[in-house]
């Protein structure tokens, strides 16, 4: 069936309301994004399918609800009963859980929370399907859990709520209505104007105003124009785009359709990382479904606009996230960036005007068109509008994907949403912006997160990775880690980046190995300055950020490494040793048993000691000791 009228969309939407919100039978929604599957969701799904194939129980898969820490997450809908999300459900537990539900019992230990209102931001035209069912029955609502309380889901609106391989469920939650409206009732210039008013900026990290990008591309001369979705999410510690592609691929397709119409393009590409095989599978399926419904191809949605999308998979090169490199890679060539004196909106892919936006940016577009640019512009700060998705990871309790309005403070994100630091350790820094970003110290935690403020702090928004580091992290090692990454990923064509990063890394390696010497800090600063000023592309231009921010905020750690030959974080092996604290050690013998080198001696209930000759500083004893009896010296 081809969708050509709004009524077609309405009919499909009405047709799935029951399966979305009022299934006639008990329905299990199992979170099956990569994170869920890694935690065992596939086994849960297979087991549930097997057990319930002859029973009246529906088993469905969804994307990621965000709280990856507690995966596998299973959301259970039972007719007339509260809709409850359970955490850490294994294949062994699933039968028990369903049987309990059938008796209207809710196993308290596994409850994450009940849903109060499952509607997306695009569904305020329908009543809350849980009205009358949701009740104050003592089960906390998801909104009452700090992790979800501060969030506002726009880009992630459907992740965890629909089957990502069902276009009908996407339409069921208000999807493709924005595209229909745009194609039938709006002129391209009106769409661009709306995007400008909304204040949407590039979510890949650059923060360039999307409306201006589209307007320039529309005006650029060229017979053919291209729209491209950058899904080459290479920042280590960031997986927002993966989650959107795996949980709600149609939101990206719809955004691209609207964008292509606004710009005047008939051909689009999604350049996705090869490391995300599931995202590729879901995209391929989504494109096929959209084509079948006439949402891609010729005469889309009954208009005279035609647009096709192809998928291109990357082959493992971080630099291909840079727009000019990505476009070269799309052309089947080596992905080396070029100087951007001519922007890609003028001459990009195949030397034609090309608009490249990140996954999250595209996913925002249907909501801006559906809810109105004015509404969107009320969210966020003066210059950064809307929400931003962050992957909150590292040494924080609630790791996962969070979407918060721009301007939310780092402290709120880490301590409220994230629940604070793991194992009661002390916070040291939060790294934002990927390898090109920086480390923000405790003193700046009240910084409201937006593009400008993070840049002022020496870091950057980047694509949204937020890695929390505690007292056991060595900041010199962190800088070394990122420089090592960037040295491997530098494309090598310009000298400041290729040689500059290599030299920076050599100096950092020396410092971490205890061979740091007087003058190294000044050398790092001097080299950084050169790399920043002279590199061809942004990869080189921002590469020294990890060094510069750690030098600015954690200079004392560099000084300890270089002058005192000590690593206070206990990471650089040449610069510390473990010692057992005489007062705290109660001889529990755990470290004795865990040490892989038999370097620990001592009788039970007696003081233990470490043989420094044998110790390989693997940290197993340090992590195993529950009595703080292993000290870093």
């Amino acid at each position, binding site marked *: 069936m081809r969708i050509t009228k709004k009524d077609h969309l309405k009919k499909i939407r009405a047709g799935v309301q029951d399966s979305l919100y009022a299934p006639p039978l008990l329905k299990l929604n199992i979170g099956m994004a990569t994170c869920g*599957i890694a935690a065992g969701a596939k086994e849960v799904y297979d087991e549930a399918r097997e057990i319930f194939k002859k029973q009246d129980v529906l088993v469905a898969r969804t994307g990621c609800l965000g709280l990856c820490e507690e995966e596998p997450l299973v959301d259970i809908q039972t007719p007339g009963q509260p809709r409850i999300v359970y955490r850490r459900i294994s294949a062994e537990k699933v039968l028990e859980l369903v049987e309990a539900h059938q008796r209207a019992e809710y196993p308290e230990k596994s409850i994450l929370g009940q849903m109060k209102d499952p509607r997306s931001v695009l569904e305020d035209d329908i009543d809350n399907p849980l009205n009358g069912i949701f009740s104050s029955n003592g089960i906390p609502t998801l909104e009452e859990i700090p992790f979800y309380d501060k969030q506002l889901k726009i880009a992630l609106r459907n992740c965890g709520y629909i089957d990502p391989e069902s276009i009908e469920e996407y339409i069921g939650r208000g999807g493709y209505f924005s595209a229909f409206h745009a194609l039938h009732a709006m002129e391209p210039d009106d769409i661009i104007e709306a995007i400008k008013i909304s204040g949407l900026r590039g979510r890949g990290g650059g923060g360039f105003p999307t409306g201006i990008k589209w307007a320039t591309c529309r005006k650029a001369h060229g017979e053919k124009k291209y729209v491209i979705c950058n899904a080459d999410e290479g*920042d280590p510690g960031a997986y927002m785009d993966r989650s959107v592609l795996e949980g709600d691929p149609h939101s990206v397709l719809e955004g691209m359709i609207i964008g292509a119409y606004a710009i005047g393009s008939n051909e689009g590409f999604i350049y996705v990382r090869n490391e995300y095989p599931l995202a590729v599978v879901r995209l391929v399926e989504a494109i096929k479904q959209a084509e079948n419904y006439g949402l891609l191809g010729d005469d889309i949605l009954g208009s005279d606009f035609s647009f096709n999308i192809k998928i291109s998979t990357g082959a493992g090169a971080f630099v291909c996230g840079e727009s000019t490199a990505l476009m070269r890679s799309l052309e089947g060539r080596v992905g080396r960036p070029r100087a951007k004196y001519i922007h890609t909106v003028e001459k990009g892919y195949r030397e034609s005007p090309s608009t490249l936006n990140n996954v999250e940016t595209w996913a925002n577009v249907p909501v801006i068109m559906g809810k109105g640019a004015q509404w969107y512009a009320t969210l966020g700060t003066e210059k950064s509008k809307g929400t931003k998705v962050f992957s909150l990871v590292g040494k924080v309790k609630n790791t996962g994907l969070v979407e918060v309005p721009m301007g939310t403070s780092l402290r709120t994100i880490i301590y409220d949403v994230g629940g604070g630091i793991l194992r009661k350790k002390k916070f040291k820094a939060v790294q934002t912006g990927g390898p090109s970003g920086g480390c923000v110290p405790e003193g700046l935690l009240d910084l409201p997160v937006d593009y400008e403020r993070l840049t002022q702090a020496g870091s950057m928004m980047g694509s949204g990775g937020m890695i929390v580091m505690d007292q056991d992290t060595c900041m010199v090692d962190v800088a070394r880690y990122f420089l090592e990454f960037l040295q491997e990923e530098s494309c090598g064509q310009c000298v400041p980046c290729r040689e500059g990063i290599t030299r920076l890394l050599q100096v950092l390696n020396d410092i971490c190995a205890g061979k740091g010497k007087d003058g190294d800090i000044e050398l790092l600063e001097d080299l950084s300055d050169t790399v920043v000023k002279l590199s061809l592309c942004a990869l080189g231009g921002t590469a020294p950020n990890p060094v510069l921010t750690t030098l600015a905020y954690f200079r004392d750690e560099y000084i300890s490494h270089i002058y005192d030959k000590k690593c206070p974080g206990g990471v650089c092996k040449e610069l510390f040793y473990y010692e057992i604290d005489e007062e705290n050690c109660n001889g529990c013998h755990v470290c004795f048993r865990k040490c892989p080198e038999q370097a620990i001696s001592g009788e039970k209930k007696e003081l233990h000691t470490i043989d420094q000759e044998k110790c390989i500083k693997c940290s197993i004893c340090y992590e195993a000791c529950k009595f703080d009896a292993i000290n870093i010296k």
Partner: protein
Amino acid sequence: MTVFIISGKKGALDDLINERFAGDKENLIMILQAINKEYNYLPRPALTYVSTRLDVPLSQIYGIATFYSMFSLEPRGRNIVTICLGTACHVRGGERIKERLESYLGIHAGDTTEDMRFTLETVRCIGCCSLGPVVTVNEKVYARTDSEKTLKTLDQYE
């Protein structure tokens, strides 16, 4: 002439180039990915063949094969063990797992054991940051792991 077998089909390299990728030079990277997937590496005869068929100099193909990290010009093992060294896994101890596996398998990351059973590789993030440290064996992801658990996991792979 060398006959290439892909997915059990003879002469399939031609089909692959022509049908799946329309004989288009722009799809060179994806053609190489398909070959790499089939053989676990890029055999030289296949590259020579692609070069002729697409009329792309072999030097350019070599450039691509060495620029992108997923390609290998050397045969790789039956099982690919990949340790994630993304930032989140790094701060949660990915590096220690790497050291342990290197000493256990007696090879460095990037190398293959003599019996061709394992190739040890590293990757900078597969997007499972919440469940770090993460190790993948072939396509399967092992989350919340450590060196001991990983060593046990390897026993399952022949």
